[in-house]
């Protein structure tokens, strides 16, 4: 346990001290601010609670998931690359440490960094709304605080999935430029092309009789699609109880648990079994 904590501390310090990561996080936080300014523009003069709630939750989801996923990919990728680049990973592996201690330490530190960044982003988002937006928007924030917590939790699991996916690609693919760029391409393909008109939409048109089923099966592989489907369950409605909403869509929400779990297990298997050079 002590070894895991030592490795996590060292990894955490490496992330905090990496100038490229600091620059990207600063850019991300500016993007969060830009999202709040967008909300302010969109909701000028609006007092409809549902409209305000939908805009805030959609913007928060977009900020934490779509914009934040690149941060998750970078964190996961850098945890393996930095050591491969310096050849430190070969040194670590020959030390009297189990490989699963090393990968546990790396996963814990990456998750901790991701938790810090997403918490900071959420805090900046909420506090900027309080500072920049008008009273009607602030009142809705107070009403939907439980939904904001759910979005924060699901977004963290979403980011954990991309983090572990990029770690997995870094471990499996020797050439680092290929692993990072391939990860970005795959994320785009699985989040946009496959559930969108590119694949699901076109296949649904080709197999006309089973359109809805095909769209549901193919689009359901994407975590972004789960967020989109939450609208249908009344997630954006401030009057609806969060427990009722989650209990009606638990089958979709559970994907946020088993998909990151699968990629983390695959990371374990790949790191423990594979020759890292």
């Amino acid at each position, binding site marked *: 346990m002590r070894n895991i904590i030592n490795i996590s501390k060292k990894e955490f310090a490496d992330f905090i001290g990496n100038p490229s990561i600091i620059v990207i996080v600063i850019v991300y936080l500016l993007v969060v601010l*830009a999202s709040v300014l967008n909300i302010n523009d969109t909701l000028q003069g609006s007092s409809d609670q549902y409209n305000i709630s939908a805009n805030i939750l959609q913007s928060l989801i*977009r900020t934490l998931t779509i914009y934040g996923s690149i941060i998750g990919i970078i964190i996961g*990728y*850098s945890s393996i690359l930095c050591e491969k680049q310096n050849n430190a990973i070969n040194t670590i592996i020959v030390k009297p440490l189990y490989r699963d201690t090393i990968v546990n330490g790396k996963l814990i530190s990456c998750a901790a960094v991701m938790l810090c960044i997403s918490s900071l982003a959420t805090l900046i988002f909420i506090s900027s709304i309080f500072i920049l937006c008008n009273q009607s928007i602030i009142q809705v924030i107070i009403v939907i605080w439980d939904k904001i917590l759910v979005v924060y939790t699901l977004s963290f699991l979403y980011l954990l999935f991309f983090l572990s996916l990029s770690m997995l690609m870094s471990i499996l693919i020797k050439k*680092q*430029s290929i692993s990072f760029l391939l990860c970005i*391409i795959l994320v785009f393909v699985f989040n946009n092309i496959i559930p969108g008109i*590119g694949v699901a939409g*076109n296949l649904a048109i080709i197999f006309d009789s089973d359109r809805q089923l095909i769209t549901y099966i193919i689009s359901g592989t994407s975590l972004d699609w789960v967020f989109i489907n939450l609208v249908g369950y009344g997630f954006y409605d401030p009057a609806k109880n969060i427990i009722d909403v989650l209990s009606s869509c638990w089958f979709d929400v559970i994907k946020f648990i088993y998909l990151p779990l699968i990629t983390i297990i695959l990371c374990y298997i790949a790191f423990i079994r594979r020759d890292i050079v």
Partner: protein
Amino acid sequence: MKTILLVAENEFYLAIRHPLIIIIACILFCIAILNGVASGKLVTSADVHHIDDNDHFLSVGLSNTLFYTAVLLTSMATILGIITISDEKTSGTIHTLITKSLYRRDIMMGKYIGMSAILLLVTIIVVMLCVSMIMIFYGGPGSISEMLIRVGSYIFTLYIINEFSLSIAMLIAIVTNNLFSSLVYAGTLLWFEWFLLIPKFFCNIKLILPAEMFMAIMEGNYNGFLFETLTPYSVWITHSMPLIIFTLAMTITTLLINLIIFNNYET
């Protein structure tokens, strides 16, 4: 000129066998084929249910592939820009290259021309594949001349945006010291330029983002979409021409900056 073309030829053959380029090209071909097969029913249905006098061959069939094609081609341009410089810096071959009896500007121009040739080839093949698949499964457009001029403009717009992305990626690769930084900055720029919703008072930022420029050009600077045949082509070209010229100017400027920085590059 001969040395530039030699470097360009070498870069072309190296990059065309890169696994990422092959993967992206395969994804683009699959999307083109799938879109073509689906267009048989989709475009026919649009002809029946959406009577808006637009030629649905373009406004429905071809415009369905617009977003994915543009994102994947700019990703390809970014990847090419990074691998041509950063991979060489990492492996150390750039030090060998610089010691050869070649002007540094020839090396940089050769790399740029080699990558541009790949982008032009892939852009033309992908768009032609999309068009031919729609023709096979749906049928011909309402007017062949209209289709040729608009599809030609689409290919040209895609190509100049890819050139812009390529020059920005090469700039990032030259300026950053290591592979990790260049990948992180280029990857983040690629991600945010396509998915960021820009606030209204930052709207001028589109002038430096290839993705925003692409959308603005295709929309005729928001005066009429290229694929909507109701908008006369002359209206589209009048409003898009300033943006096209600006994009070309930005590409040339970025390329000149690359040349200056690479000339002063200390190994």
